[in-house]
């Protein structure tokens, strides 16, 4: 049994959710999702293409910022990541603010591309390292992007999974609900029930989140770490032990 830290567990866990994708795009300020995408690329022997916004060596776009959205619109991106100031049990995300819009009491940055990309990209992974009932709420105060759509509305994509610092949930777009799939080592179901503000189902085969094996860890601490250091030197140094 090899020791690993929480960031390494999250990277390996999200990489498992990305198996089989042809093209993963990663937004800005996302070192853990970007590391997971790069790990997937290594594990697929390069079959998976990765685009990391803000990293010129990992983007092919030459038609401006709109090209990302055009790619997504055509189905050329299979996976993407969103966080959320609030995430509710129906998969709605709020990136705008807390309180009664427009007079929010707390204002976040804004919805960015979420209202569009949530429709276009099949595997959207919601990622919040802090598993907190103030984030995982019964109902978001503002819907930046809707988790599901009524029948008859054209839609290719949406939430696929929710990964937090405590657990992995899968999203069922027909039911519009999350199912707890695995619990990270050291975490318990009662604690997750107490710290999740929305109702969710529990998978009959609920398990402990798989620990990364030695091969995976050496990839994360080797090739992936060196690649991620180009964009996130502080993260690579402090979380993956990559010398500057």
């Amino acid at each position: 049994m090899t020791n690993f830290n929480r960031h390494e567990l999250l990277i390996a866990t999200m990489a498992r959710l990305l198996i089989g994708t042809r093209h993963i795009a990663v937004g800005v300020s996302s070192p853990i999702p970007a590391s997971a995408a790069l790990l997937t690329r290594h594990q697929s022997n390069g079959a998976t293409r990765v685009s990391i916004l803000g990293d010129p060596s990992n983007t092919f776009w030459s038609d401006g910022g709109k090209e990302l959205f055009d790619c997504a619109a055509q189905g050329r991106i299979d996976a993407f990541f969103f966080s959320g100031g609030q995430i509710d049990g129906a998969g709605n995300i709020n990136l705008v603010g807390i309180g009664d819009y427009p007079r929010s009491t707390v204002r976040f940055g804004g919805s960015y591309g979420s209202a569009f990309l949530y429709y276009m990209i099949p595997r959207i992974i919601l990622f919040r390292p802090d598993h907190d009932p103030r984030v995982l709420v019964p109902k978001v105060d503002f819907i930046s992007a809707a988790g599901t759509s009524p029948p008859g509305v054209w839609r290719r994509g949406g939430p696929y999974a929710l990964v937090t610092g405590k657990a992995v949930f899968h999203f069922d777009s027909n039911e519009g609900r999350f199912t707890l799939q695995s619990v990270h080592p050291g975490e318990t179901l009662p604690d997750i029930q107490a710290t999740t503000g929305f109702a969710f189902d529990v998978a009959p085969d609920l398990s402990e989140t798989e620990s990364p094996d030695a091969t995976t860890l050496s990839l994360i601490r080797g090739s992936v770490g060196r690649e991620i250091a180009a964009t996130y030197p502080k993260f690579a140094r402090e979380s993956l032990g990559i010398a500057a």
Partner: protein
Amino acid sequence: MTTWTTVDEVASMIPDGSALALIRDGCGVAMSATRALIRRGVRDLRLVNVPTGGIQTDLLIGAGCVAELETSGVSLGEYGPAGRFAQAVTSGTLTLKEATCPAIHAGLQAAEKGAPFLPLRGVLGSDILRFRPDWRVINNPLNDAAEDPVVVIPAITPDIALFHCAMADDAGNVWVGRERDLITMAHAARQTLVTVERRYPGNLFDDAALAAGTLSSFYVTAVAPAAEGCKPLGFTGHYGEDEDALRAYAKASRRDAEFATYLAAYATAPAAV
């Protein structure tokens, strides 16, 4: 005919109340010109972020220059939240047109085509739609078989597009390189004002490789030299960001008093150009 002029003259060409299109961080944010705008005391700007904003938008809001903002998001990236933006929104002093990135691209693309709108998939079910009465939902007119709702985004025609580029030539042709959103902005806007790192000797269209990334002077009202014109932001391929200055700004943006001190000492001091 494009005029070569100074940064302060560029600022004087942006009247109070203008609809002003601004590019996102890293792609040519005209910070020198922004400080000149604040020095000249511009008021009531209607900003259009293409498609997001950072320190430039936050600084203009904090300096009291902005009446309205159309944006998909404002943040100081890894330096944290944009304090003046958040303060203005929570206190209700800013009229906000909440958007999502591809909708702003679509609005500008509609304007450059002279079309009244462009349709956009997705967005349905988002509360953004509830607060954008100018965005409408229509049934796809080409789908006779079924209900097929689709959002239409009206054309966005800014009065002025303002951005920074690596170089412009004597005639006022501007090399944007791969930052193609700048070309869309210039096509959509009534006027375009550009600051540049340096003047290119000759004509950019004489070099086929450079011509592919060149915006014709036809669209450009004025160009002004501004070395390191994006600082403290970085300029992709040219220089990195000034981390200490951005950290200091992020801190100052969170408190009224600290921001006032920052504004007096930094943004409004002619020496800071």
